[in-house]
């Protein structure tokens, strides 16, 4: 029994399927990267976990409860997203005070310290902040709640390079100080990779993979060299990617690599980064966009 359990979740928006029989289980404190292309279903899934939406079919259990209309879930889970709104008549200082009344682990000092560092004055109003400032405030707010489940949907949208780096560090430091389940969605895996323990890759509303980071970065290998040699080594297996220019290049699953190949050959074997693995597993054609131009 996990802390977050989803069983055959469906979510339809009119005729469009956003989630398609999504199942997963998450247990114990860890930082998970939620990766997927645009429209893969990341935000929809997070909204369902937070109880902001009702699934069309299937079941969600957060700490054993259905999150929809659950006070227990609402006080132990927070979803930070672009479209978050706060009461417009309260300034930031008052928003922080209100949060302290609702969230029992609220870190008021931390929130004020981080906001000061980010140059966001406490007497300002949320709707008057710039896009980057609003994102920064939302993320700081999310971290300061110290909710057992913290969901961050594209938290760095609109932030400049400098503050992004600082905020990633803030997430890590807060996690070390107070471990919790943190799910960060992003289409820039490379940017968050160092923070992650696990990767969950979603495509077309389904979980494509959910594995420790290291397992993902060792899943595939790239083989580069002379056509016949490469084909012999891969045993003509299914390739996820192939390219032919000066040399021939394929990417296959590591466990399909024929280990008895001639170790003296000049064929190159390279590892494939987690970012590339995720991209390949959600690609529609073997050659990527080049195929469109070559056809």
């Amino acid at each position: 029994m996990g802390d977050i359990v989803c069983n055959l979740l469906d979510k339809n928006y009119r005729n469009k399927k956003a989630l398609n029989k999504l199942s997963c289980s998450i247990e114990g404190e860890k930082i998970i990267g939620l990766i997927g292309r645009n429209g893969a279903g990341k935000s929809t899934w997070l909204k369902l976990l937070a109880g902001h939406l009702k699934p069309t079919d299937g079941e969600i259990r957060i700490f054993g409860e259905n999150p929809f209309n659950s006070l227990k879930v609402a006080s132990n889970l927070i979803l930070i997203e672009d479209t978050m709104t706060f009461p417009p008549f309260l300034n930031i200082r008052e928003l922080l005070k209100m949060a302290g009344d609702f969230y029992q682990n609220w870190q008021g000092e931390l929130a004020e310290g981080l906001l000061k560092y980010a140059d966001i004055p406490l007497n300002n109003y949320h709707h008057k902040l710039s896009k980057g400032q609003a994102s920064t405030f939302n993320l700081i707010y999310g971290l300061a709640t110290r909710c057992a489940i913290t969901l961050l949907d594209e938290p760095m949208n609109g932030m400049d390079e400098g503050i992004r780096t600082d905020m990633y560090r803030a997430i890590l430091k807060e996690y070390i100080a107070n471990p919790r389940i943190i799910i960060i969605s992003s289409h820039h895996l490379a940017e968050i990779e160092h923070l992650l323990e696990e990767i969950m890759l979603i495509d077309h509303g389904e979980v494509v993979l959910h594995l420790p980071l290291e397992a993902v970065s060792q899943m595939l290998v790239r083989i580069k060299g002379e056509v016949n040699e490469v084909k012999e080594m891969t045993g003509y297996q299914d390739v996820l990617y192939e390219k032919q220019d000066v040399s021939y290049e394929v990417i296959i699953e590591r466990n399909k690599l024929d280990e008895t190949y001639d170790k003296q050959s000049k064929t190159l074997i390279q590892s494939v980064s987690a970012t590339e693995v995720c991209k390949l597993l959600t690609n529609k054609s073997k050659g990527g966009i080049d195929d469109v131009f070559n056809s």
Partner: protein
Amino acid sequence: MNISNDSTAPIYIQIAEWIENEILAERLQEAGKVYSQYQLAELFNINPATAGKGLTILLENDIVYKKRGLGMFVQVGAKELILAKRRDEKLSKLAKEIVQEAKRLFVQDEELIELIKKAQREE
């Protein structure tokens, strides 16, 4: 050291190698305490689980040992062990490259051995 995401070695291997380097440089003393996974996570801005995996590799290779409740410590003799391992890896890698190149150039075994002996004499 900078932990690089572009490097081909996974981050946890880079962590293990960094600690080995600290032992070689004697900034970490034998029988002395090693950084905890949380200290490493802070230091290198990485997930504590990743840092933990780096420590586990060292544990498996007998470079460090665990004292219950106290953390990890550098094994006595760790420095020698690391030196021996690196010599081994580096030399055998170079040897492989020499053999491959010799094959490409149609150099016979005896000729190659003579070349190595000559290099030794000239040292």
